[in-house]
Structure formats: C-alpha cells, structure tokens
C-alpha cells in the first residue's frame, strides 16, 4: 500500500507528460498539408474542398507566415513520428539538404504520367531532380517579369519595351519628370536586382555562381554590381528603408515598375487593381544585346511528400491529382496566378500570353534564392541589403559572399 502511494505522483507526472506529447497527427481520409504561404489560406481551403469531392481526401491545411518558423517546424517535425504528409519547400539547395537525409519521397513515376498527359512541361523536371531521382511535384510556377503601372505608362504614351535601351529611355523620361522608375526590394527579396541584372548581362555566370564554377569576385559579377550601383545612385530605384507595401506602391504610383514573380497578381488584385487596366507585365529585355535568348526566371515551389509519411498512399494520390487540370485550375483561379499545366485554366488571359511568349526563344533559370546553396544565399542577401544601404565599393560585399561560396564548394 505504502509503495503504491509513493509511486503514484511520479506516475501521474509521467502520464501528464505523455498526454502532452501525444495527440495531433492525421486521421484516415485527412492528409496533413503544411505550407509557408499563409496569404493563400483561403485558396488552399478551396482546393481542399475539391480534393474531398474528387479523391475523398480532405487536406488539413496548416499555414505559416514566417519563413524561419516554418523552416524550423518542418525540420523539427522530422525528428518526431509526426512527419508532415505533404509540405511546401524550395527547390535547389534547400531540397537537396532534405534529400541527402532521406526525408523526401521520390515522385518520378508521378512525373512520368503527368508529362505523358501533357500536364507538366518536361523541361521543368530538371529543377526537381537530385542525383538522377525526382522528388516532389510543382506546387505552382511563376515567371519573374516586370510589373508596370498602366496609368503611368499611358500618361507618357509608353509601350512595353522590347530592348534594354528602350527600357532605360522610359526610365530616363520618368526620372526627369520626378517619377521614381523602379522599386528596390530588400530583405528576403534583396537578391532581385542582382538576379535580374546578372541574367540580363551574364546568364552563364549566373548559372556558374549557382553550381560553384564561377566566383562572386569575377569581373562580370563586379560589372553587374557596378550597374546596380549606378541605377540606385542615379535615383532610378526608390531609396532603401521606405516601408510601403509593393502592391500599395503600384496602386499609388510611387514607382512605375517592379520586378516580381507573377504571384504578384494576387496582392494587386487584393487591392482591387485590375490586370491590363491598372497594371500589366512585360518580360525584362536582355541588357547585353548579343545574347541570343532572353533569360527568364521561373520560381517553382515544390510540394513534397515526406518519406515514410503516415498517410503515404493518400498523400501520393493528392500529389498525382495536384498536377492535373482540375486541381491546377482551382488553385490558379483562386490565387489569380498562372499554372505550369497548359491544360488548366488561368484567371488572367494576359498571363497565358506571357507564358506562351516565354515558351519560345527564352532561356529559363531557377530563382536565385533556390539556385544557390542556402548557406551562400543567406550571406549574399545580407550583403546585397547592406550594399543597397550604402552603395559602397561592390568588391567589399562580393568578397564576403565569396568567402562562404568558396567554403561551401570546397567541402
């Protein structure tokens, strides 16, 4: 009796802890779907409703608004038996890191079927391949284009430029009239101008930086940074530290042009702006006229299945379905974006035109954030941010990036 009394309190404590640690997890017919795109909570819910009808599978959609919190959550979930059935991630370095640990399920057979059905262009598969195997499916695909304010362009009688010289003539006219031509994205988007200018001048070096065959201190990179500095110092871009949202900048005509992914349609439409009336897009022309193709960035957000996920079969069915016209149309229309699936409908015919235009005579690249190893891109984005703030000698910043770049590729 006494023995029993002595053991009760620790047992109760242990039981409480176990209860606290347990729980959660998905039940049958419900697939966990984790994402870091909290702005699309309603859009994912709409897709979940359709998946329940078509597949009999409900998506338990859990969104994160903070990248760092999401990243840590996904990583730590792999330490538990509560692996996410499905989760959004990034291609390139971040995906390779998970694959190296054997945490992501292969999806090659899903791609084979989707490509055979004409649901996915075969050329984007390479972004999802690591050491010969394919992982995840594209959640979405967005091209990086130049958004422009239609009212401002109309006021000056501008047409979307076909060459870099035309673009700069537009910028010069605006600048002379006191209108700031371009935005200057900072923070997590501090790579944007670097990416756009690199691709406009030296797309091969851009690829070389991504795979370690080029250096950040190469003269081509320095030249790109010098051009960036010239644009910023010349007042072509808005000053750093202005805390106006990009969509609001477009609405209020703070800047005339903003380089962004086509997902920018979402926030713009959220402010009741209309594509073609209030804003429109053009493909940013090459800076170097000798380039035979114009380089365009494609942003491919992967939707991945955890290896040994609890609801592996149902999760795989969702992945298969996700690439098909039904899911793609639902998601694309809900978020006012474009789809990689040519059989899906798009919310905005302008985006279909742009994607048809890019389909021929353009060279596709992965976005800088995904193309570079995470260790390098993190430092690079800090340095770009600092560079924009003080527009100092480009070499000072590039040397800092080069240090981690060298360190990474020597390992």
């Amino acid at each position: 009796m006494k023995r029993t009394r002595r053991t009760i309190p620790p047992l109760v404590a242990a039981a409480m802890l176990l209860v606290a640690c347990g729980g959660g997890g998905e039940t049958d017919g419900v697939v966990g779907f984790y994402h870091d795109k909290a702005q699309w909570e309603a859009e994912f819910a709409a897709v979940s409703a359709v998946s329940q009808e078509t597949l009999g599978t409900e998506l338990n959609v859990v969104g994160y608004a903070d990248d760092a919190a999401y990243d840590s959550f996904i990583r730590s979930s792999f330490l538990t038996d509560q692996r996410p059935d499905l989760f959004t991630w990034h291609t390139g370095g971040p995906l390779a890191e998970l694959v190296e640990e054997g945490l992501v399920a292969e999806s090659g057979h899903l791609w084979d079927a989707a490509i055979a059905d004409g649901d996915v262009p075969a050329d984007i598969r390479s972004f999802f391949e690591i050491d010969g195997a394919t992982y995840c499916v594209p959640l979405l695909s967005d091209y990086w284009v130049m958004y422009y304010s239609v009212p401002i362009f109309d006021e000056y009688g501008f047409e979307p430029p076909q060459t870099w010289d035309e673009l700069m003539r537009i910028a010069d006219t605006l600048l002379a009239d006191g209108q700031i031509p371009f935005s200057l994205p900072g923070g997590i988007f501090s790579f944007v101008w670097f990416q756009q200018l690199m691709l406009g001048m030296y797309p091969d070096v851009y690829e070389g930086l991504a795979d370690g065959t080029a250096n950040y201190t190469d003269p081509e990179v320095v030249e790109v940074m010098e051009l960036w500095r010239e644009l910023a110092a010349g007042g072509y871009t808005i000053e750093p530290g202005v805390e106006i949202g990009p969509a609001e900048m477009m609405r209020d005509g703070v800047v005339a042009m903003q380089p962004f992914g086509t997902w920018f349609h979402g926030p713009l439409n959220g402010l009741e702006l209309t594509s073609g009336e209030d804003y429109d897009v053009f493909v940013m022309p090459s800076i170097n006229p000798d380039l035979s193709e114009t380089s365009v960035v494609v942003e491919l957000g992967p939707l991945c299945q955890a290896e040994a996920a609890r609801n592996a079969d149902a999760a795989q069915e969702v992945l298969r379905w996700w690439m098909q016209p039904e899911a793609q149309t639902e998601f694309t229309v809900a978020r006012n974006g474009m789809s990689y699936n040519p059989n899906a409908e798009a919310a905005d015919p302008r985006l279909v035109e742009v994607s048809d235009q890019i389909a021929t005579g353009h060279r596709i690249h992965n976005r800088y954030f995904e193309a570079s190893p995470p260790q390098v891109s993190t430092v690079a984005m800090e340095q770009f941010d600092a560079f924009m703030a003080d527009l100092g000698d480009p070499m000072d910043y590039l040397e800092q990036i080069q240090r981690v770049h060298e360190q990474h590729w020597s390992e």
Partner: protein
Amino acid sequence: MRAPATSVRGGRPTTITSQATARMFVAPAVIVAAVLLYLPFLWAALLSFTEYRGLGAPEFVGLDNYAAMFDDPNFTISLRNTVIWVLGTILVPVALGLLIAVLTYNHRFGTWLRLPFLLPYALSGVGIGVVFGFLLQTHGAINQMLDFLGLPGAATRFMIDAPINTFTMIAAASWQAVGVNALLFVVGLQSIPKSALEAARMDGAGPWQLFRHITWPLLRPLTTVVVGLSIVASLKTFDIVWTMTEGGPGRRSETLAVTMYRETFSMQRFGMGAAIAVFLTALTFIAAMTYLRRQLSERPEKVR
C-alpha cells in the same frame, strides 16, 4: 484576543516514510522544472559544441563554434551594438526616469505629470517597434516633420545608416521605459525620511545640495535595482530591433539576441546559435553579478 499558537508539534511524528511521501509530492514540480528549464538549457549548452542544421544527428566539433563566433565580424558588430544598448539604456531611460521622478515628486500635480510617461508601458515592445518603424522609415513622418520645421536631420535615414539606427531604436525603447523607471524612483523617494531632508534644509542646503547629499545617497538601493534590471533587459534586446530593422540593413543593427535568433532559425546553424546563447547568458550573468556585488558590498555613502 487569541493567544499566539504554541509551537507544539503536530500529532504525527516525522518519519522517514512521511519525508519520502513529501518528496513524492514535490516530485512533479521538480520534474516539470527540470524538463522545462534545466534540460533545454543543458541541451543548448551541449548543442554549442556541435554542428547541427536541424536534420540528422548533431556532429561534435569541440570549440569550433566559439572560435568561429569570435572570428566573425558580424559577431563583433553585434557585440558592439549590444554594448551601445546597455550604455544607452542606462543613460537615457534611467537618467530621464530619475529626472522626472525628482522634478515631479511632491508637486501638486505630480501624478498627472508622470502619468503620460507611464502610458507607453502598457504597449508591447513589438507594437512600439511597428509604430516607430513606420514613423522613422526613409522619407517617413519624422523626416517630413523635421523638413517642415526646417530642422536639421530631415534627410537622415534613421533605420538605414549604422549606428544611427541603433541610437534611434534606443530612443524608441526609452520612450517606453522612462515612465516605469520614474515610477520606481518615486517609490524610492517616498521611502526617504522627511526628517533628513528637513534637517538639511534647515542647515541651509539648496535644491542641488539636497539632491546630491541626501536624496541621491538614500536612493541608492533603488538605483541599484533599476540599473541592474536595465542592464539585464538591454542585454537581451530583441523585439524592438526585430520589428524595426530585423537587424539590418545587412546585419548592421543586430544585437546578440538577434544574432542568436538569426543564426539558429534563419540560417539553421543551431550549434552557432547555441554558442551565442551561451555567450550571452554568461555575459548577462557576469554583468549582473559584477554590478550587484560592487553596489551591494560598498557601504552606502554617508549622509552628510
């Protein structure tokens, strides 16, 4: 009136069994404390000797993280900013708090005069960061106001240029902290015996002499507490920096707490983040102990 309870022992004699039972009842609390407080701290300390990106198993690297930390120019900047925060927090909100307390104490409308200073204390640090970040952005309301009034600084990039951005954030944090410091000093002033002040006044002491020789020495125990709390609070500065500049541009305005967060969660370098956490803990402990030891071991200045 009831007689005070006598110290007669309870009916049951203390035995080994009942002591063991008592320990059992304490056990849940001890276990919870161990699991929630001691274990995470030990785990973080252990992690600081490993390389770990949140996947797979941590790899033991000895003191590499610490060596890399002291070698990293970003850490030096962060340490410098943290020292500026400590000095700034002692100089501005503590000194201003004392000034407000002394000037308003015994004033007819003292409470009303102090009240506005106390109101910001009701706001969260994050809220203050967001509001001041908005006001102080490039070409923001503060720049426009300075320009309108023809005052210098209209072109200052408060959030962009270092170390101005750190000074700016200290000013924003002070806006919140001044009031509560003033309140604490008023409590201190109330504890000073009137007789001492009156005696000094009768001896012909002016206001400055009163403050210098009576008020200040007698306020000392409270000053020690206020300054001690300020040191600890400023060493762990995070919320206001994160909301106003996120430590940027680049990493120019980071404090040690922000660097710790960025290394751990943005860069997924858990080992390095843990090393900074251990360093920050040691720094806080040493700073607090050194300060308190010095203050409490010295005899209070004699009231002259």
